[in-house]
């Protein structure tokens, strides 16, 4: 799921300068799981805004703000939202932009910073294991992703700088190539896959925009 964290309240208030009436939007999916944009965080932010002399015309937690069909159905014609000058959005950047596309006239204030696609270990403990490269190779790397988990995104093997199994860039992190190797060793056919040079044909895909 998409990992987000809330912006500093002063930053949010700064964006709302000159706007008196606001409406707060949350997300029932990732941002709820992350405890950054669920019912509770929406309520707390609304209270915080009220304390700072904002009139909160209402709140809503959309099922998935990143789904434009839902934004159209639940938010576009929401009366209370209509009364506000600004919408304060507790969703990831994809949610904010879906809302922006469906409601082009509205003043939007993103209240979260979007960090990465994460795997949840336990609440508040998220790991970045995949960076959505668009060309998955982890069948050749023992199911562990070097594109994301190696600090230098080396896909053919390690840099040689690991110290005691830890990454040379961040001693708090395991060198993923050592983890990969340990796992591969348990299966000789996998080692063969590792030895095959991974070419560069399609590893870098910074954007994948599909419109239809």
């Amino acid at each position, binding site marked *: 799921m998409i990992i987000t964290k809330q912006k500093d309240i002063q930053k949010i208030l700064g964006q709302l300068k000159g706007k008196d009436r606001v409406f707060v939007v949350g997300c029932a999916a990732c941002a709820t799981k992350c405890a950054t944009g669920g019912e509770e965080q929406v309520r707390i932010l609304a209270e915080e805004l009220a304390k700072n002399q904002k009139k909160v015309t209402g709140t809503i937690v959309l099922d998935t703000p990143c789904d434009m069909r839902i934004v159209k159905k639940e938010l576009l014609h929401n009366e209370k939202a209509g009364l506000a000058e600004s919408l304060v959005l507790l969703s990831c950047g994809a949610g904010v932009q879906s809302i922006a596309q469906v409601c082009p006239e509205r003043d939007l204030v993103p209240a979260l910073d979007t960090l990465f696609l994460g795997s949840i270990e336990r609440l508040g403990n998220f790991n970045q294991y995949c960076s959505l490269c668009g060309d998955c190779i982890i069948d050749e790397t023992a199911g562990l992703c070097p594109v994301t988990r190696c*600090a*230098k*995104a*080396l*896909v*053919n*093997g*390690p*840099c*040689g*700088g*690991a*110290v*005691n*199994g830890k990454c*040379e*860039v*961040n001693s708090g992190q395991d060198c993923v*190539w*050592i983890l990969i*190797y340990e796992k591969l060793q348990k299966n000789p056919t996998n080692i063969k896959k*590792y*030895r095959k*040079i*991974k*070419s*560069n044909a399609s590893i*870098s895909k910074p954007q994948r925009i599909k419109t239809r």
Partner: protein
Amino acid sequence: MKFAETLKTKKFIITAELFPPKGINVQSLLDKAKLLRGKIDGFNVTDNQRAVMRLGSLAICRLLLDQGCEPIMQMTCRDRNRIALQSDLLSANTLGVENILILSGDHPSQGDHKEAKPVYDLDPVQLLKTARALETGVDLAGKKLDGSPQFCLGAVVNPMADPLDLQLAMVEKKIEAGAQFFQTQPIFDFKLLETFVARTRDLPAKILIGVFLLKSAQVAIFMKEKLGINISPHYIDRLSRAASPVDEGINIAAELISQLKPHVDGVHIMALGLEEHISEILDKVK
């Protein structure tokens, strides 16, 4: 002699590392190089070493060529995408620089522009293959080149890396991708190197073992504690007791090279700013 030719001989190969200044005053570096002309086989010029922004490797390599020194241009994968990397490979060749040492490069977070975007569009294996592809007259997009370059390609290996098997698999991959020679991280104990030497002896590439000029006990302690490099307490002791630690460092480096000489293809000397002392090291090698 061209470095590619040197690699074909049975000669004990010696290269030294030079790092470009932060700024445009190149004279002191060129003077240091001049002292070594004729004494070593290659002048290895770093590429924004330790992710600290400096003058480019290519400019220095060309200046070295002009004064009769054989340059080896380091090229990291850190700062350039595949377009810039290929273009710079062509630029180097056009300026007469054929020897390229390819490495991943220290991460920006370890340098002096910590917020810089890490690129790593290609990894070292892929960049080696890319250089070889350019030699055949096509680029990574499969487009034909108007005139193709010729390279002598090198890469790096860490003989002390654990697990060694993984490093050796990497060496084989790099050779398959086009590496003709390797240089290693600094080594301070030949004993620790024996397994590595035995297991790489028959590979079709020359391996130059890194030798570092320790200028003080503090540097040795830093390398041991912060970089995890195995330096025997005996050396640290000698350095801290010496009247002139640099002279003692020179002795240590010369001893190491003398020990290595019968067993390895060559050495790569890193003097980190004290390059003017490299010829003293070489004079003391037995």
